[in-house]
């Protein structure tokens, strides 16, 4: 770490880039920290700084709503939806990843068709889904139309991650398993899945967070009852209290917990592999 010793004084570009990075960090975490701090605003405080008489009253307001919206109800829809999207994304991406591993006819076309939904604007997809459901006489709800819309967003990511992971999986592992008398199914169960498991956790993480935070693809597809991002949006227009900040803090904490669980399990698996049991 003694770069300055071996290469002489740091060039001015180092300081320019360091300043740029500092700005980046401020923009990334500044708003989050501001919301976090203001969510502890006291009864005499307002929507802006300074923080007066810190309290937990807005968290209480959030979980025992008098004036705010149906936050717990929205969370009760957003969480199961995100879990459902996560499970389906992992299942479909992993199996599709294996299918694409052995080249089949039309693989390229199917791949680009799947990836194309990444560039369709979310709001357009939302409108299209609603219109189609209306035309077919189906009712939009979080577990039908919103689930489909979210999958159209999470699957391409899941697929791309699996491609990257399976691309690095040497075929010689499967051949070695075959050489040692393993059946196809034994090879998948005992060799392939354990090796790509960290990648599957990454896919799960993406599936969960993409759905949990999704706004545009939820907008018209959730039906009459909102998911959490939509509820927050509604609140910004008609709730003018720091309860909004408390909500922001709670949802961010949920996201962080999910990410920590995912990354933690990847670290544990890799540590186990490099150090032995």
């Amino acid at each position: 770490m003694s770069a300055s010793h071996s290469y002489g004084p740091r060039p001015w570009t180092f300081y320019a880039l360091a300043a740029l990075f500092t700005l980046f960090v401020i923009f990334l975490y500044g708003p989050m920290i501001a919301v976090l701090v203001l969510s502890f605003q006291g009864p005499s405080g307002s929507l802006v700084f300074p923080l007066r008489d810190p309290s937990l009253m807005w968290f209480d307001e959030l979980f025992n709503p008098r004036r705010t919206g149906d936050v717990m109800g929205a969370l009760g829809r957003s969480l199961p939806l995100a879990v459902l999207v996560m499970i389906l994304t992992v299942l479909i991406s992993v199996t599709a990843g294996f299918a694409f591993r052995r080249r089949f006819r039309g693989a390229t076309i199917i791949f680009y068709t799947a990836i194309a939904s990444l560039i369709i604007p979310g709001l357009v997809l939302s409108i299209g889904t609603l219109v189609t459901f209306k035309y077919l006489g189906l009712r939009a709800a979080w577990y039908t139309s919103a689930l489909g819309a979210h999958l159209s967003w999470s699957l391409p990511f899941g697929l791309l991650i699996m491609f990257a992971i399976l691309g690095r999986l040497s075929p010689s592992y499967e051949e070695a398993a075959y050489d040692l008398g393993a059946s196809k199914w034994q090879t998948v169960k005992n060799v392939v899945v354990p090796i790509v498991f960290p990648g599957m956790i990454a896919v799960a993480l993406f599936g969960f967070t993409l759905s949990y935070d999704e706004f545009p693809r939820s907008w018209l597809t959730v039906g009459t009852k909102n998911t959490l991002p939509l509820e927050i949006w509604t609140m910004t227009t008609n709730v003018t209290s720091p309860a909004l900040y408390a909500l922001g803090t709670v949802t961010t904490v949920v996201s962080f917990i999910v990410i920590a669980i995912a990354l933690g399990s990847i670290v544990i698996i890799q540590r186990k592999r490099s150090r032995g049991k």
Partner: protein
Amino acid sequence: MNNTATMKAAAAGAPAQESGEIRLVGITKQFGNSYAVRDINLTIPHGSYCCLLGPSGCGKTTILRMIAGHETPTSGEVWIGDQMVVGKPPVERGTAMMFQSYALFPHLSILDNVAFYLKMRGVGKEERRSRAEDMLRRVQLDHFKDRMPAQLSGGQQQRVALARSLITNPKVLLLDEPLSALDEFLRLRMRGELKSLQNELGITFVHVTHTQPEAIALADMVVVMDTGRIDQADTANMIFDKPETPYVARFMGGQNVLTGTVEKGAAGRLRLKTAAGTVIEAASGSAPEGSPLSISVRRDRIDLARKETLPAGAVNALAGRVVATEYQGSYVKVTIDIGSDLFVANVSDSAYFKDPADVGDHVVASWQAETVHLLRKVDSGETGASYLEGGH
């Protein structure tokens, strides 16, 4: 390393050893429109150490993979013992393969890697652990049984891969460039271990390599390959000393190849003259007058003298200018520009240092008629030309 004697005992647990003779009959493998190998016929005797030798892309690995069952020939038959094995999985063939990068399962401990075959066959946990431990003890790695593959050195990983292959009790062990991932020191040591292991197990080893010294050091039978076909299959000594084609002579190194036209020679002598005017006489052999012929002369059978020009009427001698000298310890490799080509003489260190020829010096290289070896094919100058400098 004295682990091989005990490893034999492990493999000898099998009932009477079945034959591990490998017969390839008219094997062709096509990938799309290109041929990886074409019409290969080869018999590898039971219990021999066979090296498939050739540059990358010559098809040697494809042959190994077809014997292993990881590739299906487009046409032709693969026989192991008295079984036609095309379409059969490796375990039924009695083969085991050691992969180039060893392909140890990264998520399993060393013990579980070795026990993998037994686990797949439904052997109970206690039994498979104790059998795998026995096998690990035999490669002297039992104290590492709970480690993960990533924690072992290359040489240790290779021994684990060997143990994992041998626990299947194979008739034939297939090794895909097993030494290429090791550093020079370890490579020589593992080379010795492989050889003595094969001696003591008595099963057939087929070893793919692109390194000539490795093949010569190990093999009872060397199969030299050139783009999809076999050029020569013979003992290491024959391959090195009596190559059949210019390609083999050049690829193995250690030979100079000269091409000329057959002329009328003295009784019992074959005489030819190269385009550059060098006259060569061979002590034996015959060829019709006027036909083109290629010969080889071993680099270490060349005498060098510091002389400006060739004496008139000289036979089995040519003049040139030294362009490089390389000290190799027991000998010195002297490269001579003879105008049309490069000619190499490996001169023993004692002879060389009596009168060291330096770069730029003019020398005359000469050899005995008895050392001239006739090649079966005329040098086209094309195949194998890029391997001119291979070997020593």
